């Protein structure tokens, strides 16, 4: 059973995030549990990144397609909300891939609440690594990102919000 579980996890790790294809859905940490019911039936527990993230439906469809292609005929997908998803679950290697893709990865852990009291975080420009960057908007092109601009190379860039 443990081997089957590992095999399924491996298959899922090949599914790219629909909006940020350089990281996989397992990198993102949205797969919370894999339960093998029998040879052809699997139950997956998935947690949403953001409540209204439109990519979640796409992820479910991609998961079904992948597993059904491998001979599993019944895929039950259950959404779990607790514990809520956090960017702390994105592994360091995936964060580096985000940076190379041009998205500044979440800089701190969610334990750091200083931004709530108005202290701005230093976000490195993913292109020139400058610390001289400015928050343009807390809300960016998708729910998970904020909009920044580098004051040195002048490139606007997305920052993967730390939640």
């Amino acid at each position, binding site marked *: 059973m443990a081997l089957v579980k590992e095999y399924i996890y491996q298959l899922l790790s090949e599914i790219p995030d629909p909006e940020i294809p350089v990281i996989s859905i397992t990198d993102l940490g949205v797969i919370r549990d894999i339960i093998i019911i029998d040879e052809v039936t699997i139950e997956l527990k998935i947690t949403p990144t953001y409540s209204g993230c439109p990519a979640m439906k796409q992820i479910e469809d991609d998961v079904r397609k992948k597993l059904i292609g491998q001979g599993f005929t019944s895929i039950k997908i259950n959404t779990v909300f*607790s514990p809520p998803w956090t960017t702390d679950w994105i592994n360091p290697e995936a964060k580096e891939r985000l940076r190379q893709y041009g998205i500044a990865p979440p800089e701190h852990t969610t334990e750091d609440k200083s931004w709530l009291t108005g202290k701005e975080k230093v976000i490195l420009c993913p292109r020139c690594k400058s610390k001289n960057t400015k928050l343009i908007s807390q809300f960016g092109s998708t729910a998970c990102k904020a909009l920044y601009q580098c004051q040195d190379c002048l490139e606007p860039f997305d920052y993967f919000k730390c939640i």
Partner: protein
Amino acid sequence: MTTQEALFQYALRLGDTNLILGQRLSEWTGHGPFLEEDLALTNIALDITGTAKSLLEYAAQVEGKGRTEDDLAYLRNDRQYLNAQITEQPNGDYAKTIVRQAMIDCFDLYFYTELAKSKDETLSGIAQKSIKEVTYHLRHTTSWLIRFGDGTEDSHNRAQTAVNELWAYTGEMFEMNEVDAILIKEGIAVDLPAVKLKWEKHMSDVLEKATLVKPENVFMHTGSRKGIHTEHLAFILAEMQALPRMYPDAKW
């Protein structure tokens, strides 16, 4: 009323409140005062609509009559909706939208913080998720509210007008009925008077920073817990429900 019926009503009330607010905010999509603000409000609308989906999905499951969250959203009329009346109020100018949103974000932050402790695992999970999002929303809307109030004479006046107008709809957010009584006994629902104290303190602080006057002893509208609404709700539903009612088998 059984606990199950009360839980259905409760999830429906929370789901409807989020759905109607999300729908209202979406009206700004493509019409925001500038690009970043357009994106911000659209993102907030998306979070809120997502929360509505989770809550209505749960309501449908609790009811156990085979309805889906789409059936609940698209196939009920205004008298069957339990959203707070403040959420259906027209967007008005940007000051009014921001004032309404700040009032609700502030309520949501304290409300979800309590709901996260609920003995109902699903409601607690949805609340834990929402707290993270609402924290961002509140930070955004209160910073605008302060800028408007403490800004130009025009922005100050617009913000004060909005506060005066919308304050009369805030009392309803804290109303409790039989549904709350049954569920509080079970450790499921939130005791709203406790939330009200925190909300009032927070709003007073923000209004003071914004150099705005907090209305006192105003008449409070009521009715949504019984499905009574202002005339605006029926228009929202007419727009939102037109497609699924006209083409009942339509699939996205």
